[in-house]
């Protein structure tokens, strides 16, 4: 068995490893073909998830996956839990937001404790940038980043790329506009890296206080005018605006935000006719997005993103545990 991708697919350089990483900490540091490999693998789980009969695969049977969420989450946690269970693993959720962390245990001690329970993969969400990387240094099993502070949220970027790929046929060459609170968004960071790697043109737009100028160093175009940013684009990715940022610190109010950056049908008409509308959820209807746009059956991919989320997470769990399972594919 080898690490190599045995395919003549020109997207993969010959002799390159399919996915040589122990952990999935972020998109930064990945190669484009590694991302494409995950997306390819996710396709088969999309099929399984759509099946009306049993949705269960036993490839991870007997493995224990711990979802350690140090920050509240509903959809990402649920998505990872379903992904693990569909692969046959035993999934345990640890809601650290209300546990020993409150009793003063350090993050490293918590990591060592989780490690001592011999998890086969740990999925972590944490409120501080870099926290997941810190834990990954202290444990023996693969660690998946489910969002750390304002750093990265790699599986979200992967599921977004998969959604675009399935709807548009390719990510390369698409013009993608990301709109909203880029400054505080790990989703935006991971998506910028991922989309740029896959060859998309990326525009970012939002209030000047929430779209740092330094982003231009990553090869994206920065706008503060929504209409200009949206003109002729293939994909619009709306970000959620956190309620606590709407009270005058960064922007004056939700309604002013809606006035400048709310996605409505009139603005939508500036984009390409077949523009794809995306949102990582949960949405603030009437603030960053109008209901009529969010629910547009033809253009909106918002529910499809959720669907792809499970498949992508199944692919990640499968790929990262292959080494331990001694399964063909990369060891």
């Amino acid at each position, binding site marked *: 068995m080898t690490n190599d991708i045995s395919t003549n697919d020109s997207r993969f350089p010959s002799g390159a490893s399919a996915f040589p990483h122990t952990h999935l900490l972020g998109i*930064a540091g990945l190669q484009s073909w590694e991302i494409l490999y995950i997306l390819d693998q996710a396709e088969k789980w999309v099929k399984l998830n759509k099946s009306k009969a049993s949705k269960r695969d036993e490839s991870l049977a007997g493995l224990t996956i711990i979802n350690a969420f140090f920050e509240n989450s509903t959809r990402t946690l649920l998505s990872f839990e379903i992904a693990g269970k569909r692969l046959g693993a035993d999934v345990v959720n640890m809601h650290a937001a209300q546990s020993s962390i409150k009793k003063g245990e*350090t*993050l*490293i001690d918590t990591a060592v404790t989780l490690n001592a329970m011999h998890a086969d993969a740990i999925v972590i969400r*944490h409120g*501080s*940038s*870099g*926290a997941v*990387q*810190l834990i990954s240094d202290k444990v023996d099993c693969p660690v998946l980043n489910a969002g*750390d*502070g*304002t*750093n*990265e949220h790699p599986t979200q970027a992967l599921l977004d790329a998969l959604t675009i790929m399935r709807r548009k046929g390719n990510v390369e060459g698409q013009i993608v506009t990301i709109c909203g609170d880029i400054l505080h968004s*790990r989703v935006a*960071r991971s998506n910028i890296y991922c989309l740029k790697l896959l060859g998309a043109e990326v525009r970012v737009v939002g209030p000047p206080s929430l779209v*740092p100028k*330094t*982003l231009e*160093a*990553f090869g994206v175009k920065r706008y503060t005018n929504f209409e200009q940013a949206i003109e002729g684009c293939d994909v619009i990715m709306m970000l959620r605006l956190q309620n606590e940022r709407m009270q005058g610190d960064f922007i004056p109010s939700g309604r002013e935000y809606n006035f400048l950056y709310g996605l409505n049908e009139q603005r939508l008409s500036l984009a390409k006719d077949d523009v794809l509308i995306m949102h990582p959820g949960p949405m603030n209807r009437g603030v960053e997005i109008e209901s009529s746009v969010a629910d547009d059956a033809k253009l909106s991919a918002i529910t499809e993103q959720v669907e792809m989320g499970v498949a992508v997470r199944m692919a990640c769990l499968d790929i990262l545990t292959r080494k331990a399972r001694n399964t063909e594919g990369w060891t």
Partner: protein
Amino acid sequence: MHIQNFKTLNGEAVDTISCENGIITNIGQKSDNDAQIFDAKGLLLAPGIIDLGVFSTDKPAFRFGGITRAALMPDQNPCHDDPATIRYAALKGKPDFWVHPLAAATKNLEGTHLAEIALMKEAGAMGVATGHDNIIASETMLRVMEYCAALNLPLFVHSEDIGLTRDSVATSGETATMLGLSNAPALSEVMSISSDMYLAEEADVHIHYRQVTTKRGLDLIRDAKSRGLKVTCGITPAHLFLSDTAMTGFRTFTRLSPPLRSEDDRLACIEAIRDGTIDVIASGHDPRAPEEKRLPFSEATPGMAGAETLLSLSLNLVRDGVISIDRLFDLLSRNPAKILGINAGDINVGLEADIILIDSDAPWQVDGNAMQGKAGNTPFDRLPVQGRVRHMMKGGKIIY
């Protein structure tokens, strides 16, 4: 005691340096008395380093680094804001190491009520400091400065505009954006420097900016000096040799206050060493235990262990041709002594015999796991450096 067989900083040939009762008594030919002779075996002889602004009395680290005296910041637990704590701190290192405590400018460094500066001077304080934070109310700052001016004490300030930095942990830039760390523009420094500068001019006080780390901040200092204001400033090796890219990988040992700056600012700092704008290089020695550093970046305590590496890293400036080795000891010893107003910091008759003997080319590797001091939180871990202190004399006594 007579010290013989050494090299001098300025290259002049000197046969013997003699000291008696802790004071340098003769430079030149050996006098006839039969005191003990110390053979320096060709090492470089320099005044002991005076580390202007440390956060811990960490004697093993200071010994390793050739530091014979240090100005101790008032950010201690408890805070050095009354005469008793100052007196204790001043005596703590003696006899082989001298601590020159800096008095807290305000009670508990909270920036609201004036501390007993005159009583603390009486107890041994050699200067006043605002600590890690600055005083937000300009009215309070002006009063502190007027007090310092009247008592002829220098005021050490930290330069970050809190209104701009708030809870940020990094300088705005590509690295901070990429890592997703809360950040503030480097501009925060120049804003703080300028407002303190106007107040200091008004109060006619000697103001020492402990760390100036940006081009615009240094421009302001340069300008103030040309106008003849009583302004001095310092820097640490971290800001001379590292830029914000060192934070990559969330290395908490690079979490500093002020945070690491851009490469352009770093190069401006080197330039300011060359042209004399920067008066002092200090270690900012702040050893931190693992539980304060093995944390997510934004939760880690800022600070670095710097005493051990201060001399070796500073010698890079000599090797790179930025300054001469004689000039380096202006920055490490002579200027700090002048700012504190103490009878040391140079090799002159009548000064305290605080002397170090240096093997300036000796190679070694910085190892955070094997530091002499209290903790190994050095941002220079694993860096190969050159220059080791082989012998140290404090008040004419051989420490090692």
